[in-house]
């Protein structure tokens, strides 16, 4: 009897997970459909750009600097064995522009801005502010969700680009200034190896996709959270976990499509 019960339980969980994905997709499409307001009243989006983008600047820049410095140090230690320290610039730049910039920036963004979005909207729901808006014939998706969505989508590629740029300077600082790799070969080999369309634009596309996914997950978890203290905290946790996993899985898929081993 308990075997039957547990099988039923698994089936129930799968069905409700699929159900939730369907609701999330409808929520995403509704956000797109009602996003006219966030451009007509652009100050709403500006306000959200401040709290998601500008407030994430410090963590992104500091993290980028240290990731670049570590890449410079580790890359030097490995490349030294093959006598090709001059390729350090290539390694740091390609690693950052293709992978680490978009992915680490998106992970930081998910935990810095995504969790805040979920908690904010979840609390709005728990304190019945969303219901109050509906009572006043204000569409909460147009007024609350869409501006946050566009702020996330706009700020993510910018943050990832800043992460990569600062990281390259971090690698430069450790590799050239501290260790003494030749400055000319550091930059010239980097410029010869990094292609604008293949590497940099693909990195921007990646971060754009990650920005969309993280923001949609964060907003949906907040909007869907049970209106209790426990529900909001659970939704915040789910935002960070789900969006981190989604970033890493999507990164593999996007990498496989973009860089097919050539």
């Amino acid at each position, binding site marked *: 009897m308990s075997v039957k019960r547990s099988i039923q339980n698994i089936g129930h969980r799968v069905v409700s997970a699929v159900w939730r994905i369907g609701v999330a997709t409808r929520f995403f499409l509704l956000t797109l459909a009602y996003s006219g307001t966030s451009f007509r009243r652009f100050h709403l989006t500006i306000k959200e750009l401040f709290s998601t983008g500008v407030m994430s600047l410090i963590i992104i820049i500091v993290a980028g600097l240290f990731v670049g410095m570590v890449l410079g140090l580790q890359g030097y230690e490995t490349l030294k064995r093959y006598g090709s320290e001059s390729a350090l610039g290539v390694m740091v730049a390609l690693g950052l522009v293709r992978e680490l910039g978009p992915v680490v920036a998106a992970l930081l963004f998910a935990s810095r801005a995504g969790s805040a979005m979920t908690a904010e909207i979840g609390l709005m729901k728990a304190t019945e502010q969303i219901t109050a808006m509906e009572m006043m014939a204000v569409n909460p998706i147009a007024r609350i969700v869409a501006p946050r969505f566009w702020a996330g989508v*706009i700020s993510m*590629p910018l943050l990832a680009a800043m992460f*990569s740029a600062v990281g390259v300077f971090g690698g430069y600082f450790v590799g050239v200034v501290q260790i003494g790799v030749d400055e000319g070969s550091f930059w010239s080999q980097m410029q010869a190896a990094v292609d*604008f369309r293949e*590497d940099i634009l693909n990195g*921007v596309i990646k971060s754009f996709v990650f920005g969309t996914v993280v923001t949609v997950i964060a907003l949906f978890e907040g909007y869907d959270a049970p209106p209790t203290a426990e529900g909001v905290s659970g939704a915040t946790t789910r935002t960070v976990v789900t969006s981190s996993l989604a970033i890493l899985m999507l990164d593999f898929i996007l990498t496989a499509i973009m860089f097919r081993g050539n």
Partner: protein
Amino acid sequence: MERTTLDLWVGIFVVGGIAALVMLAMKVGNLGTYNVSDAYQVHAYFSNIGGLKPKASIKSSGVLVGRVTDISLDMERYEARVTMSLDKRYQFPKDTAAKILTSGLLGEQYIGFDVGGDEAMLKDGDEVKMTQSAVVLEDLIGKFIYSKAEGSTN
């Protein structure tokens, strides 16, 4: 519309992000250094291209003059057909020779142009007639062993 400090910060954020992108494109990437928009195409046949890859550089006297755009196997000659895109600023005589060379001992392979003395210049769609294939290490070792064996029997 009144301006607020919020707008200033968001402006700084957007400008900083775009500046980072431009810096990546110009300083890290190759957008500022090499422009393929003004180019002409020539092709050449090699019996063996070794490890030559698309986007490999084409150099004359060590100066980058173009890039390999396409590599395919010609099914009539059973030779590799390498299409090259050369910068319009650089014109080469018709009897220029193309060699597949290696930069450094283990470096990547590139095509080197040995300039000839013909009056006529290569045009778009022309073929570089004189080619020298890549040196394959196994062939070299094979030849070396063969000549050694020949020497020891005498």
